């Protein structure tokens, strides 16, 4: 080591190389970090002027870096399921939502969210039956699994859970309709363009304090955006 003497050119080269390496490292790190963002599923306009949005909620998504977390899958136009919560919708359009709920339920932290709100007619159809208030304490025994809540559009739709001990309970997503589920349908109007955040009000982040960590605080699981364009 002693006595190594570099010429001026060599020193300049080494320094420039160092800077270049640093920038490379930076780009590599940032790119690697960004790669983890969930995809956006676009729901195009249908002929009738309204669109259909089909989603499912699973007790464990089964894919990605956190397979054991609860989360959503959204169906794209070709019928393929994507594990995401980023949904692109056209503006000023009625959206017919079909939600397949495969998760078991629990209680709401705040029972005010048992009211259906912001949907056409103020109701949601749970397995075909119209409901405007679901009773988290007495419902069929399986509690409420999740709520679909878009604050800026005033939407709140609670979803009944299925029995966690059902024979054909879906353990990992994406699930299919041969497994135990509830089907919830409702319609809402998108209004003007904008990015509307949505979340769930059932503390469903299992293993996290208050049930509000993990999937509840990560895009792609129980937190998302409706990108109305």
């Amino acid at each position: 080591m002693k006595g190594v003497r570099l010429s001026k050119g060599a020193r300049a080269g080494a320094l420039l190389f160092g800077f270049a390496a640093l920038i490379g490292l930076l780009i590599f790190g940032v790119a690697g970090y960004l790669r983890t963002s969930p995809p956006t599923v676009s729901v195009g306009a249908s002929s009738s002027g309204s669109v259909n949005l089909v989603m499912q909620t699973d007790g464990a998504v089964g894919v990605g870096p956190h397979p054991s977390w609860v989360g959503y899958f959204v169906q794209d136009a070709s019928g393929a399921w994507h594990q995401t919560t980023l949904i692109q919708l056209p503006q000023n359009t009625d959206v017919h939502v079909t939600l397949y709920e495969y998760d078991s339920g629990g209680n709401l932290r705040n029972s005010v969210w048992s009211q259906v709100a912001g949907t056409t007619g103020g109701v949601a159809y749970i397995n075909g039956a119209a409901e405007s208030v679901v009773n988290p304490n007495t419902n069929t025994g399986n509690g409420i699994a999740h709520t679909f809540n878009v604050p800026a559009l005033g939407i709140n739709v609670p979803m009944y859970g299925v029995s966690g001990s059902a024979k054909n309970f879906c353990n990992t997503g994406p699930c299919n309709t041969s497994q135990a589920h509830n089907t919830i349908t409702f319609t809402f109007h998108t209004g003007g363009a904008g990015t509307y955040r949505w979340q769930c009000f059932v503390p469903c982040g299992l293993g996290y304090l208050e049930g509000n960590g993990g999937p509840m605080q990560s895009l792609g699981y129980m937190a998302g955006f409706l990108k109305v364009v």
Partner: protein
Amino acid sequence: MARFVLEDSRSEEAGKSALVKILSVWAVVSIIGMALVWFVLGPHLAPGTMTDQAQGAQFDIKFVSTLVVPVLLFVWFFFGYSIMKWRVRPGEDGTLPAANLSGNSKAQGAWYVITTTLVLGLAAFGTYFLIAPAGAGGGEGASPIWTPGTTKLLQVQVIAQQWRFTYRWPQFGGMETTGIELPVNTEIEFNVTSLDVIHDFWAYQLGVKADANPDYNNVAYTKTLATGRFTVRCDELCGIWHGAMYNYGTVVSQQQFEQWATNMEQQNASVTKLLPKYSLTYTPSYSGAGGGYYNTSVDPNANL
């Protein structure tokens, strides 16, 4: 080396005349600046005049801002003048001695006295304006000591949860709403609590800010003086949707408020039945899930 002699420009006399110049310019500019801040900027300062508390805060901000003007100017003028006058010009030897001045008991003494007086004055001022408008709109904790002198209070419970505010109205059958309207010319008592992590209820135009702590009631008062819209924002980091945890409210006339509240009470009757009994705090035990974080066998709140 020949005996060093300090130039005239750095002599004591030069210093004295410099001080006179600085102080006189400073005095004039300060007065103008203070007047501008007080009269021109003052009425537009945050957070407006919608409530007694907001008005008080605006007055305080105006007052402190006015006081800040001469302080800023004094330091600027002093530094600016010194640098301009006593900087080394090209060609000068910058390493020669300057004035041998290692202190000045008069200047130092004056400085200590003035800063101490200013600081103690400000503390007294702040204390007065904290106590007079019933805690100045800040969260006073569970047992407030500065209260409005009336028992005719509208009680509003602010319930923060990840990531929305809801409002409960004990005087209206304990209903819970997602929106908030308030009557004008009314003393309001906010009871702020949280169902999970720490949030903060910041109603900007009302001049109210109070942390929402789990298992704890934080009381804040305000008296509405004018109608209009106000913004509620969560002001304590509470996780992913902290930045989106806001809503808007309105201060309306007393009749409009009565009407709104009675309507809401009817509309919400079926949900109100499902709510827990009104209380100042709500532990998860009674409203459900704990996320399974604590082992079920030791968690007193589990499975309820």
